[in-house]
């Protein structure tokens, strides 16, 4: 299968190791990965901040970029960006009276999947250790990001896949379904409320004793990781793509040494 990678802006610029891990996983399954060079961002930040004109331009770029390349399905290591592509692009186009863009956006959205959605629903991956050779001998916990959970209805796909990684110990996160408080520009405009939510999420993570918290959205993980780091916590965050890509021969960094920049330098 020819799979177009939608890296997402935050992963492209801040967490390239997550995109590389995504490529590794898909290639390990024998698929061809292409990277539409014109891509930049889904426009979610603009949309959710009320800047619809700007958001439409960003979304239009996304649609153009993916129309320019031939592929069977597109994938992003982010539930929230996929939700934006699937649910917001049409709205942005319709508001501008651009029905042509609305239909093209729908077409791109219909073949765009969140990583575990693609792995489980399309590629039939149910056991990461057996099918991907995933190995990560550490104790982790898992935060299901809101948009994956409520907009994409990912259910337990992410958690179930993580549990099948070789050597892993996944401990349940109390109040896992509670938002971490990121919410894009919400964390700036209503920084104090966001911080109160973040503190509770950090406390939940701490209570598990896990050395890191994984999830499927780099933005939420940056938020949670930023809070843990500021609080001087030993625990960090790591995107699930990196855990799924980790093998005995090519391990992801051990949790204690987990540093959000490691991926880029190794």
């Amino acid at each position, binding site marked *: 299968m020819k799979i177009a990678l939608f890296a997402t802006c935050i992963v492209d610029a801040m967490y390239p190791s997550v995109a590389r891990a995504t490529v590794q996983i898909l290639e390990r399954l024998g698929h061809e990965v292409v990277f539409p060079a014109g891509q930049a961002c889904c426009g979610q930040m603009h949309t959710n901040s009320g800047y619809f004109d700007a958001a439409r331009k960003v979304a239009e770029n996304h649609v153009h970029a993916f129309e320019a390349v031939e592929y069977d399905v597109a994938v992003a290591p982010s539930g929230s960006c996929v939700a934006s592509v699937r649910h917001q692009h049409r709205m942005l186009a319709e508001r501008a009276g651009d029905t042509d863009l609305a239909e093209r956006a729908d077409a791109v959205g219909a073949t765009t999947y969140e990583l575990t959605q693609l792995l489980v629903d399309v590629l039939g991956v149910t056991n990461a250790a057996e099918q991907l050779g995933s190995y990560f001998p550490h104790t982790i916990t898992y935060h299901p990001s809101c948009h994956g959970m409520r907009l994409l209805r990912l259910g337990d796909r992410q958690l179930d896949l993580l549990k099948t990684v070789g050597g892993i110990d996944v401990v349940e996160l109390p109040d896992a379904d509670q938002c971490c408080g990121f919410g894009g520009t919400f964390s700036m405009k209503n920084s104090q*409320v966001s911080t109160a939510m973040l503190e509770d999420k950090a406390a939940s993570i701490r209570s598990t004793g896990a050395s890191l918290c994984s999830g499927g959205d780099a933005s939420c993980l940056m938020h949670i990781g930023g809070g843990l780091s500021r609080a001087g916590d030993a625990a960090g965050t790591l995107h699930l793509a990196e855990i799924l890509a980790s093998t005995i021969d090519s391990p992801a960094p051990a949790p204690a040494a987990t540093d959000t920049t490691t991926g880029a330098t190794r």
Partner: protein
Amino acid sequence: MSTTFMGMPAVRDTAGHGNLHASEPFPQAATRELGNAQLRSNLRHATHTIRDKRLKVVGELDDWEALRDAGAATKNAAMANLPALLEEFEKNFTARGGVVHWARDAEEANRIVTDLVRQTGSDEVVKVKSMATQEIGLNEHLESEGIAAFETDLAELIVQLGEDKPSHILVPAIHKNRTEVKDIFLRQMPQVDPDLTDNPPELAMAARAHLRKKFLSAQVAISGANFALADTGTLGVVESEGNGRMCLTLPDTLITVMGIEKVLPTAQDLEVFMQLLPRSSTGERMNPYTSVWTGVTEGDGPKNMHIVLIDNGRTNALADQYGRTALNCIRCSACMNVCPVYERTGGHAYGSTYPGPIGAILSPLMTGIEAEDNGSLPYASSLCGACYDACPVKINIPDILVHLRGEDVAAQHQQRKLPSEMDLLMKGAEIALSSGKVLNLMEKALPVGRLAAGRQKKIKKLPGKLAGAWTSSRDIPAPPAQSFRDWWKKEGRG
């Protein structure tokens, strides 16, 4: 459309008035409320209790989603048919001996109610908890006209005696714990047992004793209504304590104040809403008491029956094609009970009678986004979506929040000459993120950020109000040495 800024925001004729406004920006109010540790602890306990109850009783029904679908469709149909339904309701209510009054806004509604009370010769009224009368500020108005209004719902009584403001639409005193309630009763109830403890049953008994005489002697009652049935002219009130039944049954005169959006097409609709409402609100299979009445019944209940149908901004909300489903709200409060923002700030931070996620959309929809600080309300959400999942009539609150943010940005741009910090941030991001090429160029600067992060590989402080707000409590990791797209290219892959 005028482009001249006259110093006053343009408020439409149809805008709602009364207690529908944030009087200061939400972030400011929220920060203050966050500082109240007792409040946060009370709210956490209460919201978690009610969430668990709701989940349990909703889980008992395997047709919950079908009920939600029916509820949402019924409300959408009712809103689309509103003129016909209101006419039908008016005709049937009148035929059964009731009198219908119409009020364009809060002021007019207050005046009508005052006149009706005056005509009875009474200078006091008993009240059933009602959001509509909170919204129009009826109690304050009656007081200014020399009419005493006695709230009879326990929580409203706590709020009234505590000279406080409601902070939740179902449990207005949710911000108070039992000890605080006891202290209010000891201070404000003349006949109360001085040895009163903070045991809830004892507190409820104190309220019973306090209100009993009032109920038995009141001549006029004022209520809201949970629903009105167009095809029969029937009204319904859902409650728990029996204070509603007292008010709706014993006095000679009953004045009901109701928003025009509460009308349902047919009696059959009750079978849907009376399953959705109690389970979503108090987390009970059914609330202890529901009263259903149709005009005057000879020999049973009030002899004089009035209803005041209020607009007060509802038509403003109805005119917004992206926001009008907010009027489908049945005031269950499930959205605020599951909201992580409400859980931490409480209801007072929202200013309006309607707090929480529904309030963050309903208030600006009713008043217009430009009114006072209501433009700050749609941002009071991380867009986590818990409210949408909990809503029994499937109001897509997150989408309407986003829509209203767009309205706010547009309104701000009309009023302002210089771009705000957010405008600049968004413009920069738009340029960077509208093209892979430009983003690639910008990413060439990543090593600079890496340098700035220093040996700790963390950025601990960013300049500016917005970015600085982020780094007030969160580190940012040092950027990578190269972006993914740069790596991809250097690998020779594309």
